[in-house]
């Protein structure tokens, strides 16, 4: 490990100050405010909130629907990952499924609700095709559908990733040991995947428990915690102390989830080695799994289909003449183009500053002997636990009187902290795999530490930096839960503007803006993927 240099300490201290100011302080304030009453500090707020039957119902509802979402999502994500990793399905089809399943990640969750409405509502596209409405979409059904679509990509990525690290040779061994299909499946797939499956369940649960966009658009009369929190904070009779209590209570399942994840970690297999091997041929298995994957994918995409159709029509579903008017309206409206510009600004600064922060933290953590470098792991665990709404709310409470209120900065900082964990872990993972003696070698060849970082470390992790870029950018384009308490008239973003447009039921504008986000993200993603590919070709 490298000797500690003064410049490392400077960076270390600066980063810690950032997290002190924008993570620990807001959290402390939140906790304090939740106990604050007119007569000093007490548990009265908690008592009031927990004895409010409406809020309690919202909590029970949230737990119920998030639990169900988590079960459905985990099963679907597992089946699709299984189809991609353990079958001989036609390869190009596998790539299509793998790409397609990630599409919802490019859209803000608030859009899902409108897409569902325009697909399954009484006059929706799918309803029209089928002739009659399938089910009542407002409330439970719509929420469930939205949550599943929202959590599926994340759960899929997690499960698919662990699938790649499973040694498929065990399937062959199990076959040769004359296992029946059930025992073989349990021992070679389910058992090594237990940790990942549990992780996917917890992740889906927390994501749906804390999402604001979907219930805001399609919640109907089914009240959930996120909408209740919004109403308590920004409704007709705002009560910041009660809001703080709800936020703290919202943290409880997230905390519980992290504890559970750590417990599940023990079930993860660590194979010495894993190798690619041919899959045993089984046509029926391939056909069934391929079919399921395609159905899930098509189901998901068909819901978004309307988004690509409706804004091109005069007035879906009544006047189906093709028009570009809605696009022209959006692009000629100062208001909407300004909002799009705002989103780009926020995404850009979030990404650049976020990468610097996460990358520096990871370097200090993995490649220096700095005392207290574990602090970053602790920070990343905390940010992983924090729902965006809770973080945003705590900023509102702490910075409401300050000059940060209503600025882009506060939104950017919120995004950076909210999404810190994943880019940090990406950087950490790639940096820790690099040869540990590069800095020493660089030093012996006359480089300063910064110079080695600049000349050796960064070029060798370029692909990771690109991945971090794509993650930060896309997430800050789509987030709504994190920023809903922080936007102002002058810093309005596309995702919060959609909420405003919803108020006027301007669905075409909503879809046009969603498409703008979608294509922006798609382009960023494709460019990043291309650059990453080029990087990896260059390195081998």
């Amino acid at each position, binding site marked *: 490990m490298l000797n500690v240099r003064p410049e490392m300490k400077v960076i270390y201290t600066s980063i810690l100050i950032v997290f002190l100011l924008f993570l620990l302080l807001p959290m402390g304030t939140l906790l304090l405010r939740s106990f604050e009453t007119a007569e000093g500090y007490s548990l009265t707020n908690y008592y009031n909130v927990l004895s409010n039957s409406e809020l309690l119902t919202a909590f029970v509802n949230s737990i119920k629907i998030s639990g169900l979402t988590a079960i459905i999502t985990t099963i679907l994500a597992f089946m699709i990952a299984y189809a991609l990793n353990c079958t001989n399905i036609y390869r190009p089809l596998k790539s299509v499924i793998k790409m397609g399943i990630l599409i919802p990640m490019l859209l803000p969750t608030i859009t899902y609700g409108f897409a569902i409405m325009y697909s399954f509502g009484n006059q929706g596209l799918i309803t029209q095709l089928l002739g009659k409405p399938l089910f009542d979409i407002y409330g439970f059904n719509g929420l469930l559908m939205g949550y599943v679509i929202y959590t599926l990509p994340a759960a899929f990525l997690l499960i698919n990733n662990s699938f790649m690290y499973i*040694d498929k*040779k*065990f399937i*062959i*061994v199990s*076959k*040769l*040991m*004359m*296992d*029946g299909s059930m*025992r073989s499946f349990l*021992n070679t797939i389910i*058992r*090594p995947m237990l940790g990942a499956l549990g992780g996917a369940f917890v992740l889906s649960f927390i994501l749906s428990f804390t999402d604001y966009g979907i219930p805001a658009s399609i919640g109907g009369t089914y009240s959930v915690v996120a909408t209740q929190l919004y109403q308590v904070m920004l409704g007709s009779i705002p009560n910041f102390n009660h809001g703080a209590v709800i936020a703290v209570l919202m943290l409880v399942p997230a905390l519980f989830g992290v504890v559970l994840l750590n417990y599940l970690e023990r079930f993860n*297999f*660590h*194979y*010495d*080695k894993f*190798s690619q*091997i*041919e899959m*045993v*041929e089984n046509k029926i298995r391939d056909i069934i799994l391929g079919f399921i994957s395609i159905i899930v994918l098509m189901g998901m995409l068909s819901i978004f289909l309307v988004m690509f159709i409706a804004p091109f029509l005069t007035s879906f579903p009544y006047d189906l003449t093709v028009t570009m008017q809605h696009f022209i309206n959006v692009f000629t409206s100062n208001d909407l183009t300004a909002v799009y510009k705002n989103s780009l600004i926020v995404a850009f600064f979030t990404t650049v500053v976020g990468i610097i922060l996460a990358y520096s933290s990871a370097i200090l953590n993995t490649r220096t002997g700095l005392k207290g470098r574990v602090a970053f792991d602790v920070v990343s665990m905390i940010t992983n636990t924090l729902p965006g709404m809770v973080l945003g709310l705590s900023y509102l409470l702490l910075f409401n009187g300050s000059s940060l209120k209503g600025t882009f900065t506060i939104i950017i900082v919120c995004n950076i902290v909210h999404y810190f964990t994943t880019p940090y872990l990406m950087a950490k993972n790639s940096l820790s795999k690099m040869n540990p003696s590069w800095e020493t070698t660089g030093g012996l060849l006359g480089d300063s530490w910064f110079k080695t970082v600049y000349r050796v470390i960064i070029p060798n992790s370029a692909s990771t930096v690109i991945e971090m870029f794509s993650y930060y950018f896309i997430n800050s384009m789509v987030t709504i839960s994190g920023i809903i308490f922080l936007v102002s008239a002058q810093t309005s973003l596309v995702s919060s503007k959609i909420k405003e447009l919803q108020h006027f039921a301007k669905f075409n504008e909503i879809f046009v803006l969603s498409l703008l986000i979608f294509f922006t993200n798609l382009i960023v993603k494709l460019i990043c993927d291309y650059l990453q590919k080029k990087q990896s070709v260059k390195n081998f």
Partner: protein
Amino acid sequence: MLKLENISKQYHSKVVLENINLEIESGEIVSLLGQSGSGKTTLLNIILGLTKMDNGRILFNDQDLTNVKMKDRGFNIVFQDYALFPHLTAYENIIYGLKNKRGSVSEAELQEYIDFLELKPHLQKKIGELSGGQKQRVALARTLVMKPKILLLDEPLSALDGVIKESIKERIKSIAKEFQLTTIIVTHDPEEALTLSDKILIIDQGNISQFGTPQEIIHHPKNEFVKEFILKQLQIKRQNIFQLFGEQYA
């Protein structure tokens, strides 16, 4: 007797194996020797039944196995990295298959295998606690209790240290003798192949370069490839060792 007739295999129009003909007698140890990419592993997988061949037939004791599924062929394999279940103990791994094939091996026979492979002290250990050689022996035991008709070994020695390597070599030889078990080994190391097996099949770019006993290969190399890539390596090794010990030890 295992007989391969005209076996060919292509992957995406790239020829991997071409017209392989081969006869292996019962109880023989045969090594498939070749460089990486030569097709030796594909041939092993074809014999195992994992990979489908494009042309040709496989006969075992005059029975046509060409279209018999992997599971029903009755062959078994020990993979290079052993593929032991990490959540089970050594003993649980050994008896893993017996749960599916009750009564095929008696308690006494099982003990015999365990004693033969000297695994008694390690039975209750988790896989992670075993050394490389111990893992190799557990994997062998797990496979042997299934009483395979042919034992396939994929690079059985490559993950082992020097001394253990020699002892496992002896172990494989004695297994073949003790249980009259036809054994097919994939390896890229000429020394290993020539000192371990009764016969060696040298494969080069999907074709049989030479098939014969170690003596035949050493003394009558059939072509340039065998001379250049197989014998030369051994000669250099011999040279180095002679230099170390002095000629008198030859």
